């Protein structure tokens, strides 16, 4: 009996005009998301390569390592283009310095501010907003529509268990619509290599899990809509309730959780912290100023000796200041990070009431575009900072930490030009993205929650239908 209802449901879905229209719209959107994602990735990749080349050219144009303004860049990843997450909000460039705090700038939205308002149409948007709404549109009258039309009564004039009917209906709807969604998804995925986007095995696995999460997310909205349909007598009421639930789940809860966590955990803003750091830096410099003013060369009047002594004093002062600033910054940053982490934990816990947040967290974690992206980029940059500092020390005698520089160059009588630098000598920056294993285990909780929501809504629909008035 289950099989009969299941097949009937599949046929009914596939033959309905509602399906034809929705399938056409979804297919276009999904394929477009893959196409645009691929194009964006390729554009980002060429932009990244151009920036790398520019960096190399800049090194090659110099004759002194001390004069090099070195930058490192966040390399684009194909999955970042498919599930944007925070990748467009994170600064992609870091001006490298041998010591001190690093900061990333030049976000994608700097280049394309319009997208900061309207955002990109990635897979997360398609599943999170469009498909969840389509699930409601598809299933809001799954039960009460049959009651109103009279087919439910005709079905149950036969000896069919309610459990078989609702199970067949849920499974038929889910499989029918999922297969229909998988077709454009597979076409979109096949487009990636054709458009020149080569995914590694690791990235294919991540993409497969993102799609699994998306289908689980779609399935729970479908079960929710069928459940609502089994609790109401009129399709119009079910649609209204479904729409209100959708608005809360998709639009309100994720935003509200951030607002509520902001109220619950107080975190100083970045400007305050920067101002504190600047004040402290100024204070330390003011403390050192008398020492600089009282500088007197110890012996002789040879300008080069004077300069060497002055530089040594300045370096010592600067090192001492920097040590104090680093200690202060570390303390203030730790405090800030702890509070911010607590605020984020509260926000994420609250937001997980909404399946949309859960799906967003799972998919961005798998795509490597979660909140961790910035931390990971900065950690990689900080690791590189040590390598860079050692390299610069080796090349220049100082750690490449910017500040005041004076170069005295002498040329011999033959006027020989100094040699330009070899950019290949500069150590390469490598962004350490999360491994598949780490990403999968980090997203396990959210994927589990999506499955749990499915079971809960399925159970809800099932129970509601067992008590449904069939007349």
């Amino acid at each position, binding site marked *: *009996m289950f099989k*009969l209802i299941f097949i*009937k449901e599949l*046929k*009914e879905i596939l*033959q*309905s005009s509602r399906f034809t229209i929705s399938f056409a719209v979804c297919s276009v959107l999904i394929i477009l998301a893959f196409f645009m994602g691929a194009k964006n990735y390729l554009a980002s990749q060429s932009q990244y390569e151009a920036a790398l080349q520019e960096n190399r050219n800049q090194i090659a144009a110099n004759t002194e390592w001390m004069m090099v303004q070195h930058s490192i860049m966040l390399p684009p990843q194909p999955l970042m283009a498919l599930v944007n997450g925070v990748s467009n909000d994170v600064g992609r460039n870091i001006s490298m310095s041998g010591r001190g705090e690093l900061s990333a700038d030049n976000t994608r939205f700097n280049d394309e501010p319009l997208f900061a308002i309207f955002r990109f149409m990635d897979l997360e948007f398609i599943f999170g907003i469009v498909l969840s709404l389509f699930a409601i549109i598809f299933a809001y009258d799954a039960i009460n529509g049959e009651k109103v*039309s*009279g*087919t439910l*009564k*005709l*079905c*149950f*004039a*036969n*000896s*069919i*268990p309610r459990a078989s009917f609702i199970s067949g209906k849920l499974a038929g709807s889910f499989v029918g619509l999922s297969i229909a969604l998988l077709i454009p998804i597979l076409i979109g995925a096949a487009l990636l290599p054709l458009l020149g986007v080569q995914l590694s095995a690791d990235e294919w696995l991540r993409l497969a899990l993102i799609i699994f999460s998306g289908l689980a997310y779609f399935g729970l909205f479908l079960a929710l809509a069928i459940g609502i349909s089994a609790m109401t007598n009129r399709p119009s009421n079910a649609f209204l309730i479904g729409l209100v639930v959708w608005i809360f789940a998709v639009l309100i809860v994720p935003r509200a959780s951030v607002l509520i966590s902001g109220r619950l955990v107080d975190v100083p803003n970045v400007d305050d912290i920067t101002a504190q750091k600047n004040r402290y830096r100024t204070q330390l410099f003011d403390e050192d100023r008398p020492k600089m003013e009282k500088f007197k060369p110890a012996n002789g009047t040879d300008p080069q000796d004077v300069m060497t002594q002055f530089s040594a004093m300045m370096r010592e002062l600067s090192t001492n200041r920097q040590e104090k600033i680093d200690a202060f910054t570390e303390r203030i940053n730790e405090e800030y990070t702890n509070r911010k982490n607590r605020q984020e934990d509260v926000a994420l816990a609250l937001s997980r009431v909404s399946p949309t947040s859960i799906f967003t967290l799972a998919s961005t974690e798998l795509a490597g575009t979660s909140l961790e992206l910035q931390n990971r980029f900065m950690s990689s940059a900080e690791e590189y900072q040590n390598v860079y500092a050692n390299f610069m020390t080796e090349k220049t005698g100082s750690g490449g930490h910017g500040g005041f520089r004076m170069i005295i160059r002498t040329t011999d009588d033959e006027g020989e030009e100094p040699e330009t630098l070899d950019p290949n000598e500069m150590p390469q920056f490598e962004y350490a993205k999360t491994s598949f294993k780490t990403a999968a285990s980090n997203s396990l909780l959210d994927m589990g929650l999506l499955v749990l929501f499915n079971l809960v809504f399925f159970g809800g629909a099932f129970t509601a239908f067992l008590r449904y*008035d*069939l*007349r």
Partner: protein
Amino acid sequence: MKNETIKQAPLLEARNLTKVYEDGVKALDNLQLKVHPGEIFAMLGGNGAGKTTTINIFLDFIQPTSGNAFINGIDANTNPLEAKRNVSFVSENVQLYPNFTAMQNLDFFVRLGGKSNYTRADYENALVRVGLQREAFDKKLRDFSKGMRQKCGIAIAILKDAPAILLDEPTSGLDPKAGKEFTKLVGELRDEGKAILMSTHDIFRAKEISDHVGILNNGILVAKKTHAELKGVNLEDLYVEYMAGYMDETLETGSLINNLT
């Protein structure tokens, strides 16, 4: 009217059937009826008399407050799945799946009824028997008139081949020709030995084909006549007489006045 079959055990039986809804309305009051193989029992009565409630109890869509409904000797409310194997149902307004063709609908509902060994030819024969044009067999139901849908409904009942049939005002809204064809089919099914319980407003058709006519008034079976007893009796007068009694009763209790105000 095959009187020799009446002696067999009833296929449909209401025994002291009472239904009081949650709002206190008594829809059925101690209803007793039996329909034997080869019989048609027509339930007449105004709106709210309890006709559809009776059918809903037989189909286990609602539970009786007390009493029992039996289909082929099986309690329809304690063992509904088994009981419903023995009954077909045709509603007042047969609604099938509009995106399916007549054939697809037939196939689904007949399989749902437990018959999975029919061929397309069997489906065609059933549809021809109920008078559906061949051109309509593979058309989607959304293009069908009410009469065509009713024909599909009776074709499903024929193919399910259950010993008992419940008809809930099956000719309501049909044009006279379609109504007559439908009645003829119901007569044929009775002649094949089916026990048919039919609720209807159509006094003349009820008298024409029924073996028993029962008049329901406020959930009470106030009159029950056999086909033989109705010979020479103007059923319309009889019906009006009972309904007038109902009117008097309601006037006495003031409920009609309350309703009017």
